[in-house]
């Protein structure tokens, strides 16, 4: 079973690489924020899987919960910033 979770964790990590490509190559900032958001959500799962590998899920699940909540706040903050950014530019222009 540990082998299964090691393989699953590795597969998850490998599948994050295309999203990492989007993070580097994304044409604009919003694409990058999108990629960060997806990687953050997947990191939650990865943390629980790491907990399964070490057989200390009870500890790692706390990190995962905190990470999920803070990741949400982070992407919401980024979204609000870009939302405001355009309004700010309009205000400056008008």
């Amino acid at each position, binding site marked *: 079973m540990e082998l299964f979770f090691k393989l699953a964790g590795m597969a998850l990590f490998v599948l994050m690489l295309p999203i990492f490509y989007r993070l580097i190559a994304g044409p604009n900032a919003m694409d990058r924020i999108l990629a960060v958001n997806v990687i953050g959500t997947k990191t939650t799962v990865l943390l629980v899987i790491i907990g399964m590998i070490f057989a200390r899920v*009870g*500890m790692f699940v*706390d*990190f995962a*919960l*905190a990470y999920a*909540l*803070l990741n*949400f*706040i982070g992407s*919401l*903050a980024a979204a*609000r*910033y870009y939302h*405001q950014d355009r*309004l700010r530019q309009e*205000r400056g222009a008008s």
Partner: protein
Amino acid sequence: MAPMKIVALITVIITGGLLLYATGDFPAWGDPLSPANNSALSRHYIEQSRVETAVPNLVTAVLADYRGYDTMFETVVVFVAGLAILAVLGQGTSRERAAIQRSAERYQERDMINIMTARLIVPVLQLFSLYVLAHGHYSPGGGFQGGVMFGASFILIALAGGLPEALSRLSIPGALLLAGLGVLLYGGTGLVCMMLGQNFLDYHILHRLLPATDAVMARYHAMLIVEIGVAFTVTAIMFIIYAALSSRGRMTGGL
């Protein structure tokens, strides 16, 4: 290429080369007998802290008890950083603030979905942060983590409902009071130890005051008090940092 970049590149290559050369003398990855891992101090913490403090989480035990001075002054640093941010950014004149308020009211159409999700998440987040704080003796957690998450719940309110909404729950003077209270709680615990005739922050004497059975449990409970103090300060300062930076110190508008 700008000249500054060439200078930077040369500096970076020389420094990096020296550092890489030095890594040859470093212990191998995961060596349990490396000097840092095999020191008497580290082994004492791992083997004796369960007897001396009854706290399973070694990080909490070392953070709040053995390295209490360090953590106390880290808390003070966080407190001073919050004060410095407020001092640097200032509060803005009232006329400026009113103008910002008007434009903020006009431009900030609040999103219903964000507000509803925030209403759903904020209680969970606050409850979880209290769990992280209180359960820090047994699982990863403690004052810093719980405080950051509690502060994040106020940041979430500010993101979804606007900064005035969050400031009506935790005003800036209130946050400063909370931060000061946290430092006072930490320092006061140490002072009480001193008044009882022990060294500063030597908790085991507190068994005379606390409803604890013996000196070991006194250290256990005093650690919780100290962590609560840290959490107060970190909560308040996280919110102050967000509030001041997101509104350029005017405390209106915001993200």
